[in-house]
């Protein structure tokens, strides 16, 4: 299905594009492959079929819905400007004479935009712009007189409007939204409906496609500058440094041999510091110290470093969970009766007796880990990881959950993190 759509698109492109394909004569160095050939084959014209037109319409609707929020933002910004610096000193009737949307995006968006303008203006009466209904203003009127017959819209011919019984001196609001490259531009002007049709006010606002919609409340409008300030405050509220407290459970795979004894699951409490490379926290690194203690069984200490990379997007989200991928390493030292299994040999009865009589088993080893972490609002995290212990790769006391490309992962761990 995807391939079919792609093929349709390509045919559509062939129709629309006037492109050239030059045949290179001499391949040059990478530094500058500027000088090449000329012969350009004109694009072959093809017939636009119904399916292609339908596909174009689908794409138009898709883009229309994407730019709609940005257009709403621009309207909000416009109305906010009127709130702060009203065009009229007293409430003034204004006819919404024309709303035009980007060429190529159809009329559906136009209706939505008109509704939004009316809604925002109604909820902000202190703008002094009172929208009024005037069907004669937007309709096409034909007027015949001694000077000739003139066909025009009512707003373009105020003299006719006055003869139709409408008050002169009203104002007409025109709004145009256009996609100009990467920018969505809103232009607005207010014209006085007198015979000379003077433009009494005009304004142009632009936003970028890469700027997320501000989604402002209609009753508490904020300027783009204020919204940006809020965004920065939200980003900066925690600073680049956080202090995580993490509860970890590590489980070790059962050995393949029946003579081996697997270590018990280990419960760890870790804390340390986590540093984000930027406020966006696209990359973070952490240094954690951990302690584990189960009476009569084992104790342990550990140091761990980890580097994480945000996978879902380029900036951590303020509203939805973020997924990080991470890798890191740890040095773990454990002791106690239950840690005898962290040896690269089969446990014998003599060894177990010797452990009981002496200081008990104590082992220190290094590990490497990879995993995923789901972080909510940079406050709560849930993660899972696979860990390899290179020293114990051939231990008969431990199996492996996963063996991939020469690396045995003997440990699976889960973590819950609280960040302060």
């Amino acid at each position, binding site marked *: 299905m995807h391939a079919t759509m792609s093929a349709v698109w390509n045919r559509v492109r062939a129709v629309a594009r006037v492109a050239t394909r030059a045949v290179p004569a001499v391949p040059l160095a990478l530094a*500058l492959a500027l000088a090449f050939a000329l012969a350009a084959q004109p694009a072959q014209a093809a017939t636009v079929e119904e399916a292609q037109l339908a596909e174009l319409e689908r794409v138009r609707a898709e883009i229309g819905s994407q730019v709609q929020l940005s257009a709403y933002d621009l309207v909000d910004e416009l109305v906010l400007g009127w709130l702060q610096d009203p065009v009229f000193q007293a409430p003034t009737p204004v006819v919404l004479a024309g709303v035009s949307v980007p060429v190529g995006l159809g009329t559906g968006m136009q209706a939505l935009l008109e509704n939004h303008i009316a809604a925002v203006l109604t909820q902000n009466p202190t703008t002094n712009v009172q929208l009024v209904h005037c069907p004669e203003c937007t309709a096409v009127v034909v007027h015949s007189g001694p000077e000739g017959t003139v066909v025009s819209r009512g707003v373009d011919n105020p003299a006719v409007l006055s003869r139709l019984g409408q008050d002169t001196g009203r104002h007409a609001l025109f709004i145009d939204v256009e996609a100009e490259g990467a920018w969505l531009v809103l232009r607005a002007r207010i014209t006085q409906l007198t015979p000379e049709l003077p433009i009494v006010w005009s304004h142009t606002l632009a936003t970028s496609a890469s700027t997320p919609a501000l989604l402002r409340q209609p009753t508490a409008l904020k300027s783009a500058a204020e919204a940006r300030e809020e965004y920065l405050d939200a980003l900066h509220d925690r600073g680049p440094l956080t202090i995580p407290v993490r509860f970890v459970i590590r489980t070790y795979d059962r050995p393949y041999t029946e003579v081996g004894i697997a270590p018990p699951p280990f419960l760890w409490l870790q804390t340390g510091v986590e540093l984000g490379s930027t406020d966006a926290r696209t990359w973070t690194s952490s240094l954690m110290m951990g302690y584990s203690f189960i009476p009569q069984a084992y104790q342990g200490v550990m140091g761990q470093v980890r580097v994480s990379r945000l996978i879902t997007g380029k900036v951590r989200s303020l509203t939805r969970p973020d997924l990080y991928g991470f890798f890191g390493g740890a040095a773990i030292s454990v002791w106690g009766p239950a840690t005898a299994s962290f040896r690269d040999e089969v446990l014998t009865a003599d060894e177990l007796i010797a452990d009981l009589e002496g200081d008990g088993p104590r082992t220190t080893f290094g590990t490497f880990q990879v995993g995923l972490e789901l972080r909510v609002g940079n406050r709560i995290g849930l993660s899972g990881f696979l860990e390899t212990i290179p020293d114990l790769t051939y231990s008969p006391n431990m199996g492996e959950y996963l063996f991939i490309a020469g690396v045995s992962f003997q440990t699976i761990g889960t973590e819950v993190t609280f960040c302060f």
Partner: protein
Amino acid sequence: MAGACAQRAAVWDRRWRSSATGGVVRCMTRLSASVGLLVGLVGGGSGCVHVYQPMSGLHDPVVIDPQQPNFQDVRLTVYCAPGDHLNPEETRMLCRRVGTLFENQGAVVLTYTRNRLQVEQAREEEEAALAASESESEAGVDATGVSRGTDEAPTDLVLELRSRQTHAASDPVSWVLCAGSFTLVPGVTESSFATDVVIRDGTGFLLARDTLEGRLVRYFGVGSWATNRIVDLLWREDEDELTGDAVNQDLSADLYSQLSQLLFNAKMQWQVRQEGLRAAGGSGAAESASDAAATGAATP
């Protein structure tokens, strides 16, 4: 059960092979293989994928069809100035091809591989020398870098091209990873360039100016090359292919389309300016035409 046994057998087999002796042998084998691969790639010149990305100006919408005679009888002079990005040989080649591009569209083209001021200065010196010796110069002498054309008529349009490198970088991390992964991860080198286009009329009046910026990225490594080659063969449409000569074709298509469009826009500006100058000279014709229109308006 049988599957589990087979898996365990495989595990033990791997463990045996990764014993100390086996590790050394394997390490040596990998090292020699990677060195051989690197030498092969460097020596053969393959294993590189060159990618072109238009940054600004080069992928602006183009309306003109460079196959059509868009510049019929326009006398055009092209100056291609060598700089840090193009050596003289590349400059000459660029100038020759740009000249051919516009000749194909009907223009009478004169090309110089120096910048305009240098050429004008050289011409003045040459004329002074000629006046002093009172001898005639031979037609077609390449004293000022003229590479084609002998038309002595004043030029209509002057196109100046200058290309410069705006940025160059080699990602050291990628090269470490490239070596560490036996070139599976590509080593990345990139450079950005800007081509300044200035178009004037014969009197030196500025008609159009633009800067076309692009970026060339080179991915070195068998992983990148092989993957892109396979994807090109099996999946990508012709126009989306990255390997082979695609980089040259894409860059050529963009550059020549934009140059044609810019020159056409400049030609229209020039014609409007000529019209304005003519109108300023005399407006009698407009008055008589206006009388005709007035008569037409009076007709019922």
